[in-house]
C-alpha cells in the first residue's frame, strides 16, 4: 500500500514538474520570439547589409554552443538566451530587408510567418495531446541534419536553386520532427531545463521560417 502511495506521489510530482517546465518554456519562448521580432524590425529600420545575418548566426552559434549550456541552470541563462535570440532576430532583419525590396516581398514574408506559426502551433498541439514519445526519431533526425548540412556547405559554392529548394524542404521536415520530439520530451517530463528547451524549440521555429521564406521566395519569383 505504501509503495503504491509512493509511486502515485512520484508520478504526480513528475507530472507537476513537467507542467512547470512546459509553462516556463512557452513563456520564455513567447518573450524571446517577441524580442526577436523587435530586433528584426530594428534591423530593417537600419537597413542592415546582408552579411549581418551571417555574423549574427556565427556569434549566436558560438554563444549557444559554449556559453548557454554553462549558464542554463542559473538566472544568467535567461539573459544569454535573450542575447542569442536578439542577435538572430537582428540578423533575420537583414534578410527581411532584401525580401521587402522584391515585388510581393511583403506578401512572401507574411505567408512564411503565418505558415511557420501554423506549423509550430499544429505540431505542438499534436505532441502535447498525443503525449507520445517521439524520441525514436532522434537518430533519424540527427542523421538527416548531418546530410543536409553537408549539402548546404556544397551549395554555398554551387549556387544550385534546385538544391536550395531540396535543402530548405528537408530542413522544414527535420525541424518539424525536432518540434514533435522536443515538445514530447517536455510533456513527458524528460526535459527538465526550460532554458535549453526554449533554445531547441526557438531554433526549430527560426529554421522553419528561414527555409519557408527561401522556398516561397524562389517559387514566387518570375525567373
Amino acid at each position, binding site marked *: 500500500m505504501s509503495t503504491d502511495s509512493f509511486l502515485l506521489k512520484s508520478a504526480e510530482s513528475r507530472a507537476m514538474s513537467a507542467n512547470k517546465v512546459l509553462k516556463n518554456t512557452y513563456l520564455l519562448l513567447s518573450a524571446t520570439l517577441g524580442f526577436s521580432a523587435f530586433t528584426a524590425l530594428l534591423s530593417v529600420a537600419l537597413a542592415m547589409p*546582408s*552579411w549581418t545575418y*551571417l555574423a549574427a*548566426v*556565427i556569434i549566436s*552559434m558560438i554563444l549557444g*554552443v559554449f556559453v548557454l549550456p554553462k549558464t542554463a541552470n542559473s538566472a544568467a541563462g535567461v539573459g544569454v538566451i535573450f542575447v542569442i535570440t536578439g542577435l538572430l532576430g537582428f540578423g533575420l532583419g537583414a534578410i527581411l530587408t532584401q525580401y521587402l525590396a522584391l515585388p*510581393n516581398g511583403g*506578401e*512572401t514574408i507574411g*505567408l*512564411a510567418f503565418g*505558415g511557420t506559426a*501554423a*506549423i509550430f502551433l*499544429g*505540431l505542438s498541439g*499534436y505532441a502535447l495531446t*498525443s503525449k*507520445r*514519445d*517521439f*524520441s*525514436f*526519431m*532522434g*537518430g*533519424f*533526425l*540527427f*542523421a538527416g*541534419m*548531418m546530410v543536409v*548540412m*553537408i549539402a*548546404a*556547405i556544397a551549395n*554555398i*559554392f554551387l549556387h544550385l536553386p534546385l538544391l536550395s529548394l531540396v535543402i530548405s*524542404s528537408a530542413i*522544414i*521536415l527535420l525541424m*518539424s*520532427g525536432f518540434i*514533435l520530439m522536443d515538445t514530447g520530451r517536455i510533456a513527458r517530463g524528460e526535459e527538465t531545463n526550460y532554458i535549453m528547451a526554449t533554445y531547441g524549440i526557438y531554433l526549430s521555429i527560426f529554421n522553419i521560417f528561414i527555409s*519557408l521564406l527561401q*522556398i*516561397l521566395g524562389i*517559387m*514566387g519569383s518570375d525567373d
Partner: protein
Amino acid sequence: MDLFLQITAAIAMGLMLIYLWPAYKHWQHNSPKAQQGDWMAALLPLGAVVLLVIFLIMAVR
C-alpha cells in the same frame, strides 16, 4: 556573395557539423526503438506540414 563570406559560412557550418557529430552518435546508439504505430503517428503531422507548404507555394505563385 563575396568569396570571403562564402568561405566564412562554409567554415561555420563545418564547425557546426563537427559539434553535432557527438550528438548524432549519441542518438544513433541511444534512441529508443519505434513501437508499432509510432512512425505512423509521426508521419501524419509531417504529411500535414508538407500539404501546408504546397498550399503556401500555390498561394504565392
